[in-house]
């Protein structure tokens, strides 16, 4: 390696280890048709899904597209506030930006009738009792705190109803219902 020659005037100073050039840019986000419609109704405590024009699959939350086929989805359907746990994870480390009691359960929630799941919290349930197929319902924020935000639902709690059979839960349910025993 080449020896760096430092001018004598600065020879005894501490060497620069890093340079910081902070950058801040602001954006006015445009959510698009689907997210706008979804968030407006979410602010009325309604959960909307998109209906795929290809095979009728119900996609929650709606993104305006069936991402499997790259087609626009402009049909909406109102969803129930109940579903099941498709899969879950018990976390023992804190999450930046959120104050959650440890350990907490993050789960892939499948609403009744929905063909894809979404990530959310499960609570009022000891971690050792959480299981795939467990039936859950939404616990909403108090009405005066509801807005057009994904934070409206605090968490999902067990309903105590009988579990969905393991083979019909979550992503497996998707393949069973849509493709039967085919290898798709």
């Amino acid at each position: 390696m080449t020896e760096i020659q430092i001018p004598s005037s600065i020879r005894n100073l501490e060497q620069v280890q890093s340079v910081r050039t902070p950058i801040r840019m602001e954006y006015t986000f445009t959510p698009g048709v689907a997210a706008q419609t979804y968030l407006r109704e979410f602010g009325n405590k309604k959960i909307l899904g998109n209906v795929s024009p290809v095979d009728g699959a119900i996609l929650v939350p709606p993104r305006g597209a069936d991402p499997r086929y790259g087609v626009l989805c402009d049909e909406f359907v109102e969803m129930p506030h109940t579903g099941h746990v498709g899969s879950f994870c018990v976390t023992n480390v804190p999450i930046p930006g959120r104050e959650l009691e440890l350990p907490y359960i993050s789960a892939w929630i499948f609403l009744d009738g929905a063909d894809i799941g979404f990530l959310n919290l499960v609570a009022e349930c000891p971690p050792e009792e959480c299981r795939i197929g467990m039936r859950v319902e939404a616990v909403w924020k108090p009405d005066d705190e509801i807005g057009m935000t994904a934070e409206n639902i605090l968490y999902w709690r067990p309903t105590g109803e009988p579990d969905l059979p393991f083979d019909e839960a979550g992503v497996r349910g998707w393949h069973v219902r849509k493709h039967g025993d085919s290898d798709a």
Partner: protein
Amino acid sequence: MYESMVTAMRKVAVVAASSRQEEKMLDTEVEMMIPLISKVREETGLNQTEIGFTCSGSSDFLAGQAFSFVMTLDAVGPVPPISESHVEMDGAWALYETWVKFQMGAIDTALVYSYGKPSPGSLQDVLSTQLDPYYIAPLWPDAHSIAALQARHLLEQDEISHEDLANCAVRAGTVQSQEEYFDQPMLADPLRQADCPTYADGGVAMILAAEGKAEELCERPAWITGIDHRIDSHHFGVRDLSAIPSAKKAASKAGVYDAGIDLAELHTSYTVHDILLRKELNLPLDPTRSSKNHPIKAETLMASGLLRIAEAARAIWEQEANRVLAHATSGPLMQQNLMCVLSGEKG
């Protein structure tokens, strides 16, 4: 003098293209791209499973979110899994990557698309972030001012004149007359508004196909007879601002001078760049045929270059031209340049 590389390469053609530009779009990138991608697939009768490779170009800095191109794959439909790639550059470079994939013999068809939605952010700030992060970007110089630095340099050297700028603005359609041009106040002296781009949200989608397949998909395929891209230094201090060596070199390598050009679709979003590039490429300053959709009037970052290639292909499909140069640029002051020659003849 020049040595073009076009002779022994596999023949690839642009067979379908679709685009959309608006000054401010409320659709998401996915909502914007689905109709464009659907249209080119329908036109060619190809579904996604029949397309060998999909490649896109876009920028997270425009979208304001990380890995934004992954979300836009919702507009493609990667089920079953597709062969896919992305460049954080104008879509013309996605086309180049795709062209290389064709040369490898790996594919017979491809989908190329790119898009940019500058309207949610402050584009002048976004453009500053592409500059040298230690010495230049922290000063936040805006793109118009940097273009004006170059224009001043060229004017003082008598390389260009104010008349040239005015004539170019009239040709590009940002003003109706020289009088109107000179009536405009300076925006970034010596540049006026008519010298600078109007930015637009937009996107473009395109299908490419190799010889043997292209003829099935398109009545008159626009054959890529040469393509090359070169880069100059990012450092303004080591660049001669009165020349664009990367553009000249890319043009030679792409075989631009092997025969006459009927039309040049240049990705020049400032009058001063249009004039300088024409001089560098020995193209006339007052061409008899000019782009119908000059990028200075609707500059869509990440898509304008690919759109030039789409416009060039359109001219061939509609038999308005037989040999067209399409150019794309990226980076500050035309730092990177791609030249693509399209022809109605397979060659």
